């Protein structure tokens, strides 16, 4: 590291951190949030949407359009990982995807069994978290991660290379990602079709239980699919790099 960089960084960090610390003393005291926005957002969730989880209502209804944007950031990241780890023309001349010698033998029976045994329960938990987003802590993002991990366990359990041979799996995972991302936009467009604004909550809000919140559970579902697909594609791409030796 050069002297210039060290000097610039030292001065800059002192000024920045000092300035921010000085700013912190001007913020409202910790634990004394008092603005109307949060209070109204929390209070109105149940009466207006029959949705008990106000965080979820904020993310998928009041500010649902943000979530579409965020979902697409996720989608773009996944497409980007695929683009950046793609094989190039000159590499494709050789037979691609040769398994690295010994790659299949690296797992133990125990991992395989434990992994397979956990898969089912985790998938159920994931589905539960996705579908109960409007009712209890959780929702599409959290549940999607759990769902993705449930399937990913089968990779970790050593079955990845076996699954990998089924090329269909890869296409299927890519599809999940796109379906999840497009699904949320379609929910928004449903509002337009019913002659309301984009993302209008067109469905009945229900009374209690799973089918409350109108479009909120559907939005959670589409995000759940998207997130699970994203986790799987990214993991598969990274595992490809580790387990399959390209012709380099």
């Amino acid at each position, binding site marked *: 590291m050069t002297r210039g960089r060290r000097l610039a960084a030292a001065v800059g960090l002192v000024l920045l951190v000092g300035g*921010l610390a000085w700013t912190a003393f001007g913020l409202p005291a910790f634990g004394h949030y008092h603005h109307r926005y949060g209070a109204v957002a929390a209070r109105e969730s149940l009466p207006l949407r029959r949705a008990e989880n106000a965080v979820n209502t904020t993310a998928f209804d009041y500010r649902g359009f943000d979530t579409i944007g965020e979902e697409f950031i*996720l989608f773009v990241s996944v497409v980007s990982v695929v683009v950046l780890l793609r094989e190039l023309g000159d590499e494709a001349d050789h037979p691609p995807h040769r398994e690295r010698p010994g790659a299949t033998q690296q797992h133990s029976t125990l991992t395989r069994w434990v992994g397979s045994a956990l898969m089912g329960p985790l998938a159920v938990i994931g589905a539960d978290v996705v579908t109960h987003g409007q009712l209890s802590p959780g929702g599409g993002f959290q549940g999607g991660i759990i769902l993705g991990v449930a399937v990913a366990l089968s990779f970790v359990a050593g079955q990845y290379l076996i699954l990998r041979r089924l090329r269909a799996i890869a296409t299927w995972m890519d599809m999940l990602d796109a379906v999840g991302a497009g699904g949320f936009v379609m929910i928004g467009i449903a509002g337009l079709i019913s002659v309301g604004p984009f993302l209008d909550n067109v469905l009945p809000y229900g009374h209690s239980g799973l089918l409350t919140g109108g479009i909120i559970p559907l939005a959670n579902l589409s995000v759940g699919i998207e997130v699970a697909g994203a986790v799987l594609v990214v993991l598969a791409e990274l595992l490809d790099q580790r387990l399959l030796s390209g012709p380099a």
Partner: protein
Amino acid sequence: MNVFPYLVAVWLLGVGLYGVITSHNYIHLILCLTVMQAGTYVLLLSIGYVHGARAPIFSGIPASARVVDPVVQALTLTDVVVEATVVALLLALVIQVDKRYGSIDPDEISRMRR
């Protein structure tokens, strides 16, 4: 104690930045970015906190209960998952850098190019 959580956030931002500037390893550098990011989450969540209030989930608590701000939680929530995949994207770039240069030290790589 009224500003302590904010100062933690500031510290995380600063220490993450220090890490990014001085890093000699791209993977370490990316993790420093996530440290910075943790700072923004601590800041967001602590802003919406209310002493003695409940989580803003009205199952089993009265509708009039005092709850913390759901908005900052929603903002944080969406950002956490997204940034995880952005990190994956950065790591994908690093994998390619490693393939082409055989090194993941930013300074060494720029020396190689010159």
